[in-house]
Structures are given as structure tokens and as C-alpha cells.
């Protein structure tokens, strides 16, 4: 049985190699038509370029970029170095070294155990947000900040300096946009161990 091809759209055209008319052969009308099109673009069509560092392309409110390690209301680091984010990370970009909180550090670290070193390799990170999902302490979030370009590889291993948000209330990084109503509702369900 021979298959007959059905046109899938109305766009298919019959190709013909009919003789060109005189006007088509002298090519000038076609040239003028083309020139009028380019001239129209030259003068009237809005330019699509964005002057990047000054103007940024609008990003989604829940854009997944540069991570942040959150502090709590009293300015203590929330991270307890449980390592769930590192386990969850499909790209194995996260690594950390846990340390024990000393006496007098209660105002710096919320939990008894904290991350002395916390590094994310931004060249490996695929910005999936699984670390955020895995975190039981609401410590790590992805934000709508862009990871900036650099000439070397080394600066892309972000340590706590780059990741932990500043102490000052005014400079805190807002992640409320990432916490959609669904997420908040889920986190209220205390029967799940990681929500406690």
C-alpha cells in the first residue's frame, strides 16, 4: 500500500519551475522591494536589543539564580549543616564541613551544629532548586539574582561570604516570592519530619 502524504497545515505550497516573467528576470523590482523592507526596519521597527548592564531582561518572580543562606529574625544563621541539600543536589555542587557551636555563639548560629564551610560550585550548579526543597530549616533559597560572569573558574566556587545574607535588616534578601502559597501551605504540615 503506498502512503499518500497529507498536508499537515495550510502552509504547504506547490513548487513550480515556471519560466520567469520579464520583470522577474531583470531582478530590479525584487531588489527595490527588498530595499524597502530593509529601509523600513532601519527607520521604523523597534530595536530588540537590551543594553544589558543598564537594562536587564525582566525575570520571573520565582527565577532560580544565585543562592542565599538565610538568617532568622534575630540574625542567626539558619543552616545546621545537615547535608540534605548536598545529598539532594543532582549536580553534586554543594559541599560543607559541619562544626559545633561554642558557648557565646548563640547569637550567630541558631542550631547547635552549623556549617563552618559551605560551598556551592556555581559551574556545576544547574539551578534546579532541589536544595531549597530539601532544606528542613528554610535556610537555603534560590533568588532572582544573576551569577555574574568572570574570567577565571576559581571565583565560581561560592563560599559563605557570597552565600550568607548580610546581618543588617535592610540588606536582607527577600525570598518571599519563592515561597508560593502552595509551598507555605505544605510547610505548615508538621507531620512531615522535615517541616518540624
Amino acid at each position, binding site marked *: 500500500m503506498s502512503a499518500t502524504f497529507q498536508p499537515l497545515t495550510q502552509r504547504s505550497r506547490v513548487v513550480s519551475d515556471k519560466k520567469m516573467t520579464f520583470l522577474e528576470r531583470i531582478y530590479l523590482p525584487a*531588489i527595490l522591494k*527588498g530595499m524597502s523592507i*530593509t529601509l523600513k*526596519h532601519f527607520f521604523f521597527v*523597534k*530595536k*530588540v536589543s537590551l543594553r544589558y548592564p543598564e537594562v536587564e531582561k525582566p525575570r520571573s518572580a520565582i527565577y532560580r539564580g544565585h543562592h542565599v543562606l538565610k538568617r532568622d529574625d534575630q540574625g542567626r544563621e539558619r543552616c545546621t549543616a545537615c547535608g540534605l541539600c548536598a545529598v539532594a543536589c543532582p549536580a553534586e555542587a554543594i559541599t560543607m564541613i559541619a562544626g559545633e557551636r561554642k558557648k557565646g555563639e548563640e547569637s550567630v548560629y541558631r542550631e547547635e551544629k552549623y556549617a563552618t564551610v559551605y560551598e556551592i560550585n556555581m559551574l556545576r550548579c544547574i539551578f534546579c532548586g532541589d536544595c531549597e526543597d530539601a532544606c528542613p530549616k528554610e535556610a537555603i533559597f534560590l533568588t532572582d539574582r544573576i551569577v555574574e560572569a568572570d574570567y577565571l573558574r576559581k571565583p565560581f566556587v561560592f563560599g559563605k561570604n557570597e552565600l550568607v545574607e548580610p546581618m543588617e535588616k535592610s540588606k536582607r534578601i527577600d525570598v518571599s516570592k519563592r515561597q508560593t502559597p502552595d509551598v507555605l501551605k505544605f510547610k505548615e504540615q508538621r507531620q512531615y519530619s522535615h517541616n518540624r
Partner: protein
Amino acid sequence: MLYTFIFLSVLLLITLGVAAYETYAERKVAAFMQDRIGPDRAGPFGLFQPLADGVKMFMKEDFVPSTANKKLYFMGPAIAMTTALLTGVVIPWGGTLHFGGEAYSLQGADPGIGILYIFAMVSIGVYGIMLGGWASNNKYALYGAIRAASQMVSYELAMGMSIVALVMTTGTLSLSGIVNGQLDGTWNVFVQPLGVLLFITCAFAECNRAPFDLPECETELVGGYHTEFSSMKLGFYLFAEYVNMFISSAVISSLYFGGYDIPFVDQTGMASNLVVILGTLAFFAKVCFFIFLFMWIRWTLPRFRYDQLMNLGWKKLIPLAILNILITGGYMVFNGQVKL
């Protein structure tokens, strides 16, 4: 004598300056026609871009292939640049200024055979490309050079014949003579409409500009005749192309579009020096338009295939040019301008 020296020095600087800003304009025009913005980082609106490009060119490694023919390899870009700059001498950039009883002509030299001089220089310019391409000892460069040579030779024929018809009507080979003949407002474009079309088409081919840019056809020949060139030698080739474009625009304007003539300016009764200066400005405006036309065409039309190029040159343009000569001659005989 001193005046001529100063005039030519200024002309050289202007030519180089215009060529430099043509590179900027080219990128801007290309960008705008493609709905982009183009270079805008170096200085206001990117106006210092040519400077940055020039510095970049100088800073690049000046590489000479070990198998290249050294002498010819050096001569190629030099010839291309020199011949490109030499053509500007005979173009009448304006009328004659009068200060304190002295006459200062805005034309470097006025030989009786101005057009032939330009043609001679353009023909020598082919050597720059051919020598450079051959001396590189690279097959793509050689292909580019061969294409350039055959293309320029083919289109020079049609170009020369389109000029013959013009010379018949104007009765002179001197560029200033031809421009003076148009000062009454009868620009040659109205006398020779077909000739204009032929001449402009051939000028595009002579400048190796799109849609006739086969000698440096990137998609087929890497970089064409300048594949093996780097640093300022490459810069000279690219720059020579832009100088040629400037000079071609000037030639087109003065041969067919009235040169420094502004229609009806002689009826306003302005001082003659003012008229001359305005005329020069008008000339530059015309030149700018044709430079824009060069770019406009380049960013509109796709490149011809090589056989199409040759077909157009030999089977279309040359017969048309001959037909143009015949029609012009027939009209002149019929009108009684010449007696058989």
C-alpha cells in the same frame, strides 16, 4: 604649490577619517536593518569604535606564513591601500574659492583624462589583491585572488562602456569638465539613466561589495584573498575597501549626480565663496547617500553565485552598455549634435 600640498594632506586625512567612520556606519546600518542597536559602548553612541578597532588591529600579532613569498606578501596590502588613496586626487570636491585675488581650487589635480586616471588606479588596485592572495601560498587566498581578478576585469569592461556613453554626451574626459557641464541643473542621471544603473552596479562589483563580494566570500573561502593576513596588513585591506567605497561614491556623485552642484543655487545671489562651500557640503551629502546605498544594498541582497556573477557581467551588463552607447550615438546623430 604649498596650497596643493596642504590641500592634499587635508584630503588624505578626510579620506582616512571617512573610511574609519564608514566602518562604524556599516556596523550601525547593519544593526539597524537587523533591528539591533550596534556598537554603543566606546564613547557616546559608540563613536570611538573605529579608534578601538584601529588599536585592536595594531595590537594583533603580525603573522607571516613561513611559506609565503615575503616581498609580495608585504606589497599586496601596500598596493591596495596606495591605489585606493591615489584616486581621490582628481575628484573635484568643490568649485574654486577666491581669497584676496588668489584662486584656490578644491581639486587636487585636473588632468584632461581624469576618468582614465581613476580607471588606471582601480586596475592597479587589482594587483594588490592578486599579489596578496597569491603570495599567501594558501588555496583559499588564491581562489579569492583569482575571483577578484576575473570579477574586476569583467566588470571594468561594462563600467568603461557605460562611461563611453557619458563621455559622448559630455564631450570631455576631465572630471571637472563633466561636473561643470552639469552646473545648469541637467544632471547626467537624467541624460543617462541606463548608464547610471550600469555604472553603479559595476562600482559595487569593483569595490568587492555585497552582493558581489565573492573574492572574500566567507562562507566558501574562509576570508578570501586576505585569509592569511593579520594585524595592520589585514587592516589595510579592509580599510582600502572602505576608501574605495568612499571614492566610488564620490565618482558616482560627480559623474552622474551633479558633483558639487546644488540646483537653483545660482539664482539665490549668494556670495560665490559661500556657494562653493555649500556646494562642497552638498557634494559630501551626496557621497554619504551613496555610501549609505552601498551599505543598504549589502544588508539587503544575498551574494551572487559565481556563474551568476559572470553571466550578469558578460551577458547582461556588457550588451546593455553597448546598447546604451548605440542609443546615445543614434540620438546624437538624430538630434544633429554630431555630423556623420
